[in-house]
């Protein structure tokens, strides 16, 4: 009974205190409060890392690393920007650097699809849009294939696509996070879509050739 009340109280405290209040407390020496801040933002941070790296372990490691960086740089945080946005910039730059470190060149799409992947592509080609959306939720191969498709992009292109499409940021926000010009963001977004379209076509024609 007492435990339930205590957990409710903790939940209430978590819900009520703003990020800025928690940060002020951490900077005043209450370092343990950082875990509250991390708990609050962890799902979003891990999801963003997963957009860059489909491997769950890598995504978790990067999320952890991002929180360490955020903690060490917390004194430099300024209130003009929401903490979530500041943290997102840290996560994005960390993932972008890791992507560049791992692959100097984008991988070539290897046209060796497993049977479930071929089934998924056939479904995408033939089913109704609503059937496609419903089927994608349960199919692991849809995610694997999508990640392979994204692996063919350059690190810059993948980053722009994630920030623009998944995080729904505008060009100036992306430019600020990445330290690029707005023109560069626009060019990379255009090239990313172009490359993605080309790779999708290549994938579809490889499946069609396999069917013959």
């Amino acid at each position, binding site marked *: 009974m007492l435990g339930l009340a205590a957990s409710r109280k903790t939940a209430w405290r978590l819900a009520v205190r703003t990020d800025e209040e928690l940060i002020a407390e951490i900077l005043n020496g209450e370092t343990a409060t950082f875990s509250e801040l991390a708990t609050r933002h962890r799902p979003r941070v891990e999801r963003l890392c997963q957009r860059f790296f489909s491997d769950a372990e890598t995504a978790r490691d990067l999320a952890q690393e991002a929180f360490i960086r955020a903690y060490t740089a917390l004194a430099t945080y300024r209130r003009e920007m929401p903490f979530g946005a500041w943290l997102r910039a840290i996560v994005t730059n960390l993932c972008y650097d890791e992507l560049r470190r791992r692959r100097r060149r984008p991988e070539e799409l290897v046209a060796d699809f497993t049977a479930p992947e071929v089934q998924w592509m056939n479904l995408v080609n033939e089913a109704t849009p609503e059937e496609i959306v419903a089927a994608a*939720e349960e199919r692991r191969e849809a995610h694997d294939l*999508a990640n392979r498709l994204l692996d063919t992009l350059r690190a810059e292109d993948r980053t722009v696509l994630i920030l623009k499409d998944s995080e729904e940021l505008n060009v100036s926000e992306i430019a600020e996070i990445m330290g690029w010009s707005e023109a560069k963001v626009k060019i990379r977004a255009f090239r990313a879509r172009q490359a993605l379209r080309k790779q999708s076509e290549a994938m579809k024609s490889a499946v069609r050739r396999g069917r013959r």
Partner: protein
Amino acid sequence: MEKKLNCFEARQEFRAFWRRELTPEQRTTLVAHMAECLKCDRAFRDFALSAPALHSAEEPPRRSPADRPAMRDAHSQRPPAVVRSRFAPRRGLAMSAAAMVLVAASLAAYFSVTAPIDSLNDELSAEPAATQLFGSDLNISSEDLAG
């Protein structure tokens, strides 16, 4: 009266459609547009190939170990030449071998045409090239040349 979408508006809604954030009316309108517009239908199918990684809230769980043998079989049926893990290191090895051959050939070419020079003094006091080639007996005067 049912609202009609143009292609730009329709494509703007792909993301919300994928995330199931559209109202039933909006969904019906979008689906009706895609049924009529072949370009938007194709664009949605392209979008659907990358959307699971970019737009889905959560990934479905990884396959259980029981499902893995089937996947392994599928992989083992592929011709070895197209398997990424086998192909990439070979290419790296070939590139390093080519680079080493190139460096060795350049060094050999360099040392075959460049005579070692001990010091600048030796170089300055060396006999002229014609003397080195034909010996000191070769002494051509201007009269010989004239006449």
